[in-house]
């Protein structure tokens, strides 16, 4: 019987009551007495020298409190980058300054130049139009290849070139090259991983507040990790001691990565609040989000796979240019390197793998982590080249993958690209996929499509990802400038109800439901007795936030550790109340029992005793029941799975429709199956969006052509089918106490190659071998014409 409480129960998302009834409290819902409004003047050109800014007219306009320009930020720290990559020669990456407001130059459309703070948004906006910015436009570099060419215009004059770093990982070049030379067959593929805009439903918002009497600051912001913002902004930008800076990220309407990073607008509002002596609020509109939120992906790759005569992989070589945009966003350097190169082995035993990545500055919006971050880029190129190879040498796409899998009895498995997979069973997920996708029925469905005049294709994909982004020891060696653990405090009240303070941040993931299930299960009490507190640095001891599918694996593990401490102490108290030895106390169903007897006390008796210590061994145990734990794992987790997509293609128009989609995932243990399914659904939807629809396109002058929903195609309900998802194949993570691996990004990682493989399958007999994402009707039609 399905459980209705605790681990394994599909408990309904309790946060949805407020989200679905309009009762959520988002940053823009916060209004502080006396607040002012900020409106940003942003660059309309991609590259230029600021000759002068005249704000006198703007300052004289009604309601204007103050106009800020770069001059107000001279001597103030810039926006820091949180990760330093070391290149192939042992040199650190080139790291440009990233001012809060432009200093002398603008480097992308949307680069902030000045800000008007006024009594109302309307007045701020009116005055912003009167700020006269004199810019000498310079040629823009948009294309990465051009940016790396000798003599290219430089995005940053003080750097030697537009190359941020040239990084490599994996086998010795000579070994890899030799394997290629001796190979029976080599398959080569050039591809583009399209630039995306995350587009969370809630645009970014920041409100800065300064209390002159106490000299402390508060920032309300749409962030996935308020403590990280406190650290970065306090220590590196504004020089505010952490105890004088409170950062609150209340309900956040989706992040998908783009709300991890510390942005100039946050620093501005905090700084300006002190400068004008009043709270300062900024809310992005959608057009502004397109040119100021960090973008995602944008890789250009050449990948080569060498095979022997039996279709066994002998070597893999990949060379990528990764767009950084104009500045280094918080985690940008890590995405194409440690989150991408390390996954290039996939689920396969390829003996030689070599990865090269050049990160490039261009006059475009900074690019950083977006759902999956590096892992979708790795999976896409690997699974596309495997599919192409299979077709070239005439092996079925399932067989070629299966015969190269790392087998279930070969774990732990150290790959040639620096990571060790702890556990997995790729044959199991493939078997499950074959069943749930009804692969056997494909031929029949293809015939039906053909009878309607449509082509039908089947695409298979296997992915692996590194989740539970943490091990501080490891990420420190790789260049992270922060630790990546998580903390939790479990605070039990006298009456036995519990508040759990967690450093993980929920912006749609359902932590308020899932985390209590874990604690309830451990204590044997009802979930409804437990609430989650998150998103406020003044309430939660410390946190590294939510991204990289790390919340349950790392944050949940910290909660387990803190709850274990609670249980240990509660048992001591129970032993005293029961006049028994501590070692004899057992906890089950919320009752502490002396083993082998019917003597017991209830959870509530123990918690009451902790806070009303009338009959209490004060010499041995402190009163109260509250524990904090920090958890830092010793490895990533490695969710993996097999996906199948079936598409129909209308040859006359090139229109692709996704007819079926099946996903067999191994997430290890599952706490709430319904939430896991929801996460997979959302991820697949975003992946289908990337594969078929979404594309951030710049023209050669650096203007964003797809800067609104008129041109940037978001997936809609009508673009996706009803999914079949399964997570019954479970190889629990071996190194965290819950045995969980993380499920937030899998769908977005696993689906794009499945979709593209399916479309290419549908068109293969015409001679189509590859189409770059997004597979828009025009692109598919053109590929068909070119092949004809």
């Amino acid at each position, binding site marked *: 019987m399905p459980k209705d409480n605790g681990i394994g129960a599909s408990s309904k998302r309790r946060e949805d009551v407020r989200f679905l009834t309009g009762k959520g409290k988002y940053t823009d819902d916060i209004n502080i007495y006396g607040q002012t409004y900020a409106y940003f003047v942003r660059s309309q050109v991609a590259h230029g020298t600021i000759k002068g800014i005249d704000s006198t007219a703007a300052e004289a306009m009604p309601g204007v409190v103050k106009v800020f320009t770069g001059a107000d930020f001279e001597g103030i720290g810039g926006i820091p980058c949180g990760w330093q990559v070391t290149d192939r020669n042992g040199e650190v990456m080139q790291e440009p300054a990233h001012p809060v407001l432009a200093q002398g130059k603008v480097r992308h459309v949307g680069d902030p130049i000045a800000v008007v703070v006024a009594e109302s948004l309307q007045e701020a*906006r009116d005055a912003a*139009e009167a700020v006269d910015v004199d810019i000498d436009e310079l040629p823009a570099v948009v294309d990465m290849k051009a940016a790396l060419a000798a003599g290219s215009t430089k995005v940053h004059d003080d750097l030697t070139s537009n190359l941020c770093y040239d990084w490599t990982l994996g086998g010795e070049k000579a070994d890899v090259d030799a394997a290629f030379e001796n190979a029976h067959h080599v398959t080569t593929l050039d591809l583009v991983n399209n630039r995306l805009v995350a587009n969370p439903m809630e645009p970014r918002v920041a409100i800065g507040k300064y209390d002159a009497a106490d000299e402390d600051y508060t920032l309300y912001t749409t962030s996935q990790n308020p403590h990280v913002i406190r650290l970065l902004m306090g220590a590196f930008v504004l020089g505010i001691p952490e105890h004088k800076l409170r950062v609150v990220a209340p309900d956040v309407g989706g992040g998908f990565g783009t709300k991890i990073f510390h942005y100039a607008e946050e620093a501005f509002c905090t700084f300006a609040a002190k400068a004008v002596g009043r709270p300062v609020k900024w809310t992005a509109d959608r*057009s502004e989000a397109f040119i100021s939120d960090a973008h995602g992906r944008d890789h250009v790759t050449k990948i080569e796979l060498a095979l022997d005569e039996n279709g066994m992989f002998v070597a893999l070589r990949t060379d990528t240019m990764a767009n950084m945009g104009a500045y280094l966003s918080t985690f940008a350097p890590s995405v194409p390197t440690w989150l991408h190169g390390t996954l290039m082995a996939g689920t396969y035993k390829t003996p030689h793998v070599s990865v090269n990545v050049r990160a490039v500055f261009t006059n475009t919006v900074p690019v950083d982590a977006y759902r999956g971050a590096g892992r979708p880029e790795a999976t896409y190129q690997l699974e596309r080249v495997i599919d192409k190879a299979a077709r070239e040498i005439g092996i079925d796409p399932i067989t070629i993958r299966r015969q190269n899998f790392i087998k279930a009895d070969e774990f732990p498995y150290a790959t040639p690209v620096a990571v060790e997979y702890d556990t997995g069973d790729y044959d199991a997920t493939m078997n499950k996929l074959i069943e749930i996708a009804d692969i056997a029925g494909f031929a029949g469905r293809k015939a039906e499509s053909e009878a309607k005049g449509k082509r039908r294709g089947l695409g298979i994909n296997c992915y692996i990802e590194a989740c539970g982004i943490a091990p501080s020891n490891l990420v420190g060696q790789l260049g992270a400038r922060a630790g990546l653990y998580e903390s939790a405090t479990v605070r039990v009240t006298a009456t036995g109800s519990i508040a759990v303070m967690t450093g993980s941040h929920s912006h749609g993931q359902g932590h308020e439901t899932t985390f209590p299930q874990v604690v309830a299960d451990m204590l044997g009490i009802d979930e409804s007795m437990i609430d989650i507190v998150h998103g406020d640095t003044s309430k939660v001891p410390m946190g590294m936030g939510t991204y990289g599918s790390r919340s349950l694996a790392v944050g949940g593990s910290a909660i387990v550790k803190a709850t274990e401490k609670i249980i240990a102490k509660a048992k001591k108290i129970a032993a005293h109340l029961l006049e028994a030895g501590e070692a004899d106390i057992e906890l089950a169903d919320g009752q502490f029992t002396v083993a082998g007897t019917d003597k017991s006390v209830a959870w509530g008796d123990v918690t009451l005793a902790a806070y009303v210590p009338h009959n209490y061994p004060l010499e041995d145990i402190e009163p109260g029941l509250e524990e904090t734990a920090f958890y830092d794992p010793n490895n990533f987790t490695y969710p993996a799975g097999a996906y199948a997509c079936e598409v129909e293609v209308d040859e*006359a*128009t*090139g*229109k692709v429709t996704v007819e079926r989609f099946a996903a067999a995932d191994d997430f290890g243990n599952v706490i709430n199956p319904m939430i896991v399914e929801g996460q997979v659904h959302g991820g697949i939807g975003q992946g289908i969006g990337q594969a*078929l*629809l979404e*594309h951030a*396109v710049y023209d050669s002058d650096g203007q964003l*052509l*797809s800067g609104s*929903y*008129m*041109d*940037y*195609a*978001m997936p809609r309900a009508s673009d996706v089918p009803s999914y079949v998802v399964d997570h019954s194949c479970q190889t629990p993570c071996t190194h965290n106490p819950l045995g969980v691996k993380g499920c937030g990004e899998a769908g977005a990682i696993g689906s794009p190659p499945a979709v593209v493989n399916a479309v290419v399958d549908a068109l293969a007999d015409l001679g189509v071998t590859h189409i770059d994402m997004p597979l*828009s*009707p*025009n692109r598919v*039609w*053109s590929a068909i014409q070119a092949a004809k």
Partner: protein
Amino acid sequence: MYDFEFVKPSTVDEAVAALSSEDAQALGGGQTLIPTMKQRLASPTKLVSLLGIASMAGVSENNGVVTIGGATTHADVAAAGLGAVSTLAGNIGDPAVRNRGTIGGSLANNDPSADYPAAILALGATIVTNNREIAAGDFFDGMFTTTLEEGEIITAVSFTPPSAASYQKFEQPASHFALTGVFVAKTASGVRVAVTGASEEGVHRWTTAEDALNTNFSADALEGLSVSPDGMIADLHGTAEYRANLVKVLAQRAVASC
């Protein structure tokens, strides 16, 4: 958005009078004009809403002529049982857009990717304004331009129902406007084929196809025809060649489903 005055007259005459002041502009459903004003790309000083004029709303049929009031919403046209015209209206935007947007607003705006212009041109409809009647062929004047005078109001659109008609819309993936749309109608004066979304000149008739269909009304009749990409729109979503291809494919599908 900049500040503006708002008036909601109840007769066409009052509306015409209100529109005579400088920088006044008619407001239909606001589905185009309001977003433009929010982006500060338009700044009328006075908005004259046409939605309070009872005579401009609703669909009627008289002596075999259908009349759609200029302020009739897309949703109301969709529900009016007008065959291909209702189907077309029912696929404009989303429910919110259809419940506000009006046929008069759509025609006056003449977006090169809008749906209605294809129907109006293919049906040979008449555009009725506060002071004259304009034949569809004389109304559209290139992208976003019409032969309406300053302050002139579309009060109604009228047409004789075709014996058969079909509209085939190929949606632009982002906006769901027509990347290209083709309306084929069998009218008393022959077959008419109107194309939207494709040409840099805006909505237009494909007369070669009309000739072929007048002889042989079948999709096959168009098989041998080719559409030149010259003068077709090229943008992020479709090259000129792609649009030229769509014109033919959609015309054939429209004929097949008539």
